[in-house]
């Protein structure tokens, strides 16, 4: 009798697991389309950037891992270099209201100016819809989409999972590497890594 119930319970959980949105976007998949509003009230649709490389950068200014890459100027430098080469760089803030990283549009615009950041736009995603669509888990987390709309990189910004700015110069920057390879027609050698950072502060 106990075994019967255990099996039924097992199947029930299995069914729940299969029905839950457990199929995240994987490398090589078409990046799912989305629409989001930036800090200047402009609407952006991912599909409008077909034909260009797109970087999605998950951001929370209070997270020490994000601070590592901003106070050092590392993220800003990447943004400047690649937007100058025609890459669309979208910083995404998926923090829910009341949680760390949640900002008003005006506040974020001040921050971008103060940090000399150079994204194409900062998308405000307080419901976490875009974050969940891409299963963003940490800040920072970096996703690169090619001109054909395919996800070619998903993961960490570099290979030193610390909060220490001293670790930046010796680290292998996966975003730099992936963009250099992809823009010169080569395959991305490291397409998927464990992103490191603080958890994205989704709504409860």
């Amino acid at each position, binding site marked *: 009798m106990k075994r019967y119930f*255990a099996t039924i319970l*097992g199947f029930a*959980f299995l069914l729940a697991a299969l029905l839950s949105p457990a199929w995240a976007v994987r490398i090589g998949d078409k990046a799912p389309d989305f629409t989001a509003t930036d800090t200047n009230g402009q609407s952006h649709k991912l599909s409008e950037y077909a034909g260009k490389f797109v970087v999605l950068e998950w951001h929370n200014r209070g997270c*020490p891992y994000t601070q590592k890459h901003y106070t050092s100027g590392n993220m800003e430098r990447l943004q400047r270099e690649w937007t100058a080469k025609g890459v669309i760089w979208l910083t995404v803030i998926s923090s829910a209201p009341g949680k760390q990283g949640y900002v008003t549009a005006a506040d974020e615009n001040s921050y971008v100016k103060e940090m000399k950041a150079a994204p194409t736009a900062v998308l405000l995603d307080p419901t976490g819809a875009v974050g969940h669509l891409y*299963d963003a888990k940490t800040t920072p987390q970096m996703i690169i989409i090619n001109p054909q709309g395919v996800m070619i990189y*998903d993961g960490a910004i570099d290979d030193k999972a610390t909060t220490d700015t001293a670790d930046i110069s010796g680290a292998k920057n996966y975003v730099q590497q992936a963009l250099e390879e992809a823009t010169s027609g080569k395959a991305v050698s490291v397409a998927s890594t*464990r992103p490191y950072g603080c*958890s*994205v502060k*989704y709504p409860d």
Partner: protein
Amino acid sequence: MPLARAAKYFVVRTLLLAAFGLPALLSAAAGQSPPSHATIELIADLTPPAGNPRLQAGLLFHLDPGWHIYWQNAGDSGEPPKITWNLPAGFIAGPIEWPAPKRLGSGSIIDYGYEDQVLLMAPIRAPMSFDYEGRPNVQFVADVKYVVCREICIPGKAHLALALPLTNDAQAREWHEEFEQARKEIPKLAPASWKISARAAQNNLVLSIAGAPQTKSATFFPQAASIIENSAPQVLATDRAGIHLTLKVSDQAAGPPTRLKGVVVLDGSLAYQIAAPVVSK
């Protein structure tokens, strides 16, 4: 090295405790130290277990309610503490012995770590030439870097020194108790009678343990990152032979692993180290 001599010698004399998070450093000028949420002590075991030729030192973390530090595989976010030892010539520290972790977080972000209090032990081997009888003073130093998190994460650093020998017997006994408690939480080797296997089926991994006792719950903690999808439910099925735990392969992995290594915890508290090759069908 003779255990009795080592035991008599390694009686810890004084302890320097210094643990502060970066926010504390930054606002030192303000004259008020914001809470760092973690305090750490560097302690040592006066009487290592019988047959254990090595002394054990340990970092005892005391965490504020709701705050946590991470296991060797932190899971979806965070990072484990890193310890850099500075020991006298000829002393060698071994790797951290990690107690069984807890699943932390919720929804799509699951981490592995510890709340309240955890002792991270490390074996320390003294050189053969070390003169216990002479009771020379030695100092162990540990530099610890860590993040402690709850809704937010705070990086921390601690520089800790432990001077030996100790004359405070009560302190030594208290510390020995901490080590004894922590030893119970180290995952045991799986019993020889268990037959452990793993197979990959589509996007799932099924971990089977034949000979495992009937259990109401089982949780697998992978030692390496990017092996399983940490936030996916782990589905337990039991039959007459044992248990089967279905795990989801990580989206970060190109395919199933060739080996499944980690800790399995049965009924919430019985923790075992397991490793099995993964058969793909």
